[in-house]
């Protein structure tokens, strides 16, 4: 609960509909889509404009409370969870597309615009917004910017960061800054690039300029069915190294297939298969058939028992269905789901997939993989029941081992979901003291008082300020270089 005086001033700024303070209505703001972490916010405010955000930030910080920005709450790393009684600034009412400039293939929008709505609006101009997280019918562009989200088609088109060209941001001190804009040629540091992926810790994005692409003329979609998941991994790696550039390559493993087929989302994938690989090519009609044929051949060579291809849009949607509904279906077969998000070098996919399945077996856990295979971005999801304490402990140990083999292969701890609350303790797996110190420093450049989304991304124990107070003044020394296995 927030002080009365603050509630009054927030109501003054955002109107009575723009402030939520009653306990029942605060419930949905306790967590994001990773429901394992729950904290009740002090209140939620829903501003409509940059100026309202600015005034709300000033009012909240005057009362010394932390602030957590929030889009649609579909995040999978606990990023929007309000710690310490924080006030949530939600962007739900900042949902207007301000302009679509077809001649320059760009759009300016408020952060609460839903990802898929932007593409729908741009379609009138033959354009679309390329980054397509699987949650695109629910998640906001503001959340995408904060997480630097990816999606199936980012294999060919790149992730959010490539498309964000300008930002208006309200900083923790209530000032408003403009970064980039009118394309991204602005001289100076790439502050837009630095902001993208900052997980709500640097500022609140209140206006976002993005680039759009022309809708591709043709699409070809294939579905390869495999008896061994490593074979599907090998097909992916072979296709990439042969110089083919599919728009998307997604793997759905056996446990996931069975979950989907048992659910209302049944997509007609064979339930005895151990992997299904969705491959899509897009672009000019000319040449698409030949590319698809080559990819199909790579699948067969890698051991696919069957390769289906979609003849029309309806069949295409059917092939995708099993992939798109995977998370929803898994939610139905286990009370809890731990979603991992590591990236590994593509060539290590077969070995890593095998390793993950062995770890699952060793701990007696069901691990269901559904992921962006073309980018090497894995989502090993562990199904469990948190009421079973023994299982919970095995889940934690297995999850850590999975992370470790991914990092050891030259990979990283998160490819698109962000660090948030969930993975911050894994940060030392890939970064040493020097890197973590620097990240703390950069955070404080934007937000010296740690007002915005405190307790996220960086583990507290790595805070150089905390270390300094512990060591009583030893900060003057040059920090030593620490090895970071992820790089070289």
């Amino acid at each position, binding site marked *: 609960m927030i002080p009365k005086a603050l509630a009054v001033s927030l109501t003054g700024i955002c109107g009575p509909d723009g402030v939520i303070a009653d306990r029942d209505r605060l419930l949905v703001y306790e967590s994001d889509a990773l429901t394992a972490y729950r904290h009740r916010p002090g209140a939620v405010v829903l501003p409509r404009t940059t100026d309202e955000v600015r005034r709300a930030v000033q009012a909240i910080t005057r009362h010394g409370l932390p602030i957590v920005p929030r889009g649609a709450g579909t995040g999978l790393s606990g990023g929007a969870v309000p710690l310490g009684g924080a006030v949530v600034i939600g962007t739900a009412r900042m949902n207007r597309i301000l302009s679509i400039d077809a001649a320059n293939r760009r759009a300016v929008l408020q952060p609460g615009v839903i990802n898929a709505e932007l593409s729908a609006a741009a379609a009138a101009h033959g354009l679309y917004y390329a980054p397509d997280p699987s949650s695109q019918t629910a998640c906001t562009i503001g959340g995408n910017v904060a997480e630097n989200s990816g999606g199936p088609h980012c294999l060919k088109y790149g992730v959010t960061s490539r498309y964000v060209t300008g930002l208006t941001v309200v900083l923790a001190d209530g000032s408003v800054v403009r970064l980039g804009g009118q394309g991204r040629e602005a001289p*100076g540091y790439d502050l837009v690039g630095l902001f993208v992926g900052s997980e709500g810790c640097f500022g609140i994005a209140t206006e976002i300029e993005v680039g759009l692409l022309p809708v591709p003329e043709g699409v070809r979609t294939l579905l390869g069915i495999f008896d061994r998941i490593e074979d599907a991994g090998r097909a992916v790696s072979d296709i990439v190294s042969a110089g083919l550039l599919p728009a998307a390559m997604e793997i759905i493993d056996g446990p996931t297939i069975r979950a989907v087929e048992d659910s209302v989302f049944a997509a007609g994938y064979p339930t005895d298969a151990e992997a299904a690989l969705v491959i899509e090519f897009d672009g000019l009609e000319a040449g698409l058939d030949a590319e698809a044929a080559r990819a199909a051949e790579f699948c067969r060579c890698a051991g696919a028992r069957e390769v289906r291809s979609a003849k029309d849009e309806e069949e295409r949607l059917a092939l995708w269905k099993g992939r798109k509904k995977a998370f929803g279906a898994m939610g139905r077969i286990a009370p809890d789901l731990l979603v991992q998000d590591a990236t590994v070098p593509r060539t290590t996919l077969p070995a890593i997939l095998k390793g993950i399945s062995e770890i699952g077996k060793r701990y007696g856990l069901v691990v269901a993989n559904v992921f962006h295979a073309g980018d090497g971005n894995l989502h090993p999801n562990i199904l469990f029941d948190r009421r079973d304490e023994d299982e919970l402990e095995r889940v934690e140990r297995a999850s850590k081992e999975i992370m470790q083999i991914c990092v050891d292969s030259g990979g990283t701890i998160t490819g698109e979901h962000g660090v948030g609350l969930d993975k911050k303790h894994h940060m030392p797996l890939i970064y040493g003291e020097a*890197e973590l110190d620097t990240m703390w420093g950069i955070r404080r450049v934007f937000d010296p008082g740690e007002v915005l989304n405190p307790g996220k991304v960086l583990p507290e124990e790595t805070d150089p300020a905390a270390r300094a107070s512990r060591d009583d003044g030893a900060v003057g020394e040059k920090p030593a270089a620490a090895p970071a296995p992820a790089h070289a």
Partner: protein
Amino acid sequence: MSEAAPAAALVPDRVVLPESAEEVQAVVLEAGEAGTRLLPAGRGTWLGAGGWGVDPGTRSEPGGGGEAGGRSESGGGTDNPRIVSTERLDAVHHYEPADLTLTAGAGIGLDHLARVLEPNGQWLPFDGPACDTGTLGAAVASGVSGPLSARYGATRDNVLGLEVVTGDGRILRIGGRVVKNVAGYDLVRLFTGSRGSLGVITRVSVRLFPRPDADVTLLFGGDAAGAVAAARRVCTHEVPVAAVEVIEGDEGGVGRAAAVAVRLLGGVDEVDESRARIVAAAGADPSAALEGGESRAFHERRIGWEAGAGVVARLAALPDRLAETLACARAVAAQTGGATSADAMQGVVRVKGSCGEGDLAALAEGLLRGRREMAAAGGTLTLSQAPAEVAARVGWTGGGGEEGGLTSRIKSLFDPDSTLAPSCP
């Protein structure tokens, strides 16, 4: 090189050539203690830019260079920037062709790198200024992209990880070598384009691409206005193209006032089809069509387009303002007896020229006028090469935008004592 005589105080006392990040660190720490300023560099291709008055031809290597932080003969405390060159950090550390990623020392020449990738049918499509003979590290530090960024993304989109030595001597390994990575804040993008003001880049991981099977460049000749209109038509056409340039004067090679160069990259069928449709849209047959190696060579030559010019500027605005941006660029070109080259997809126009001693004041005036015109339409004019006096009057970039002091706070986080000579870009 700049024709202006370098100010005596700016002649570098020496060039150091460290062979590892630890040696760079030692050089940086020593410079910090001695109060010597450091100027990070690759092969020094563009050292004339930045106003250091440095002529790479005069460099020396006392003590054979390469010794970690070798002793400074000139003593500390002078104003002379010492050049710390990454040239010897030129090893390929990791190259797995099937992953389409590579990690190499920052000092590897992009020409050398191209030869490493060629046998596997791969390339790094960096085509910004000096990306022909410059180093990988310098391309990342300058962060300037070329016309191919429409197709392959800008430089920043293809840098996966970096090792840097900061201005206060910390070695940081940021990002990684996988193609998707959101672990922690994106310091890689901060360093890409930081122009040596935050640290010395010592190692780089990049994303690679397969070389497309077909490479065709269609050249359409015409008058200047017609060329711009034709280029804009191609840019907004449904057929995706790899790059569209408007080249004025003889360099278009078609004997007309201007040429539009449309580059098509992709599979053979795709490129054939694109070609037919682009020609139909243009309403005229191309004056010339370059295929395969010829097309590639044409563009590779253009990467070095500005080399050696005394005055180089870059004007940018939204692509649909190409005619206005080009007009503004032509005014600068006229003053410098130079030429323009436009990247129509990005709305960027480059100008190169030269400047005699007598015309400096007028040139500065002209550049400032151009910058005001560009700014009025939301665009920018940045200098990348100019006589020191002109640069001093005009400023390289024209100052920061509305970023509320973030830039200077970032600079002091990495380089609190301004050991690195480059100020914020």
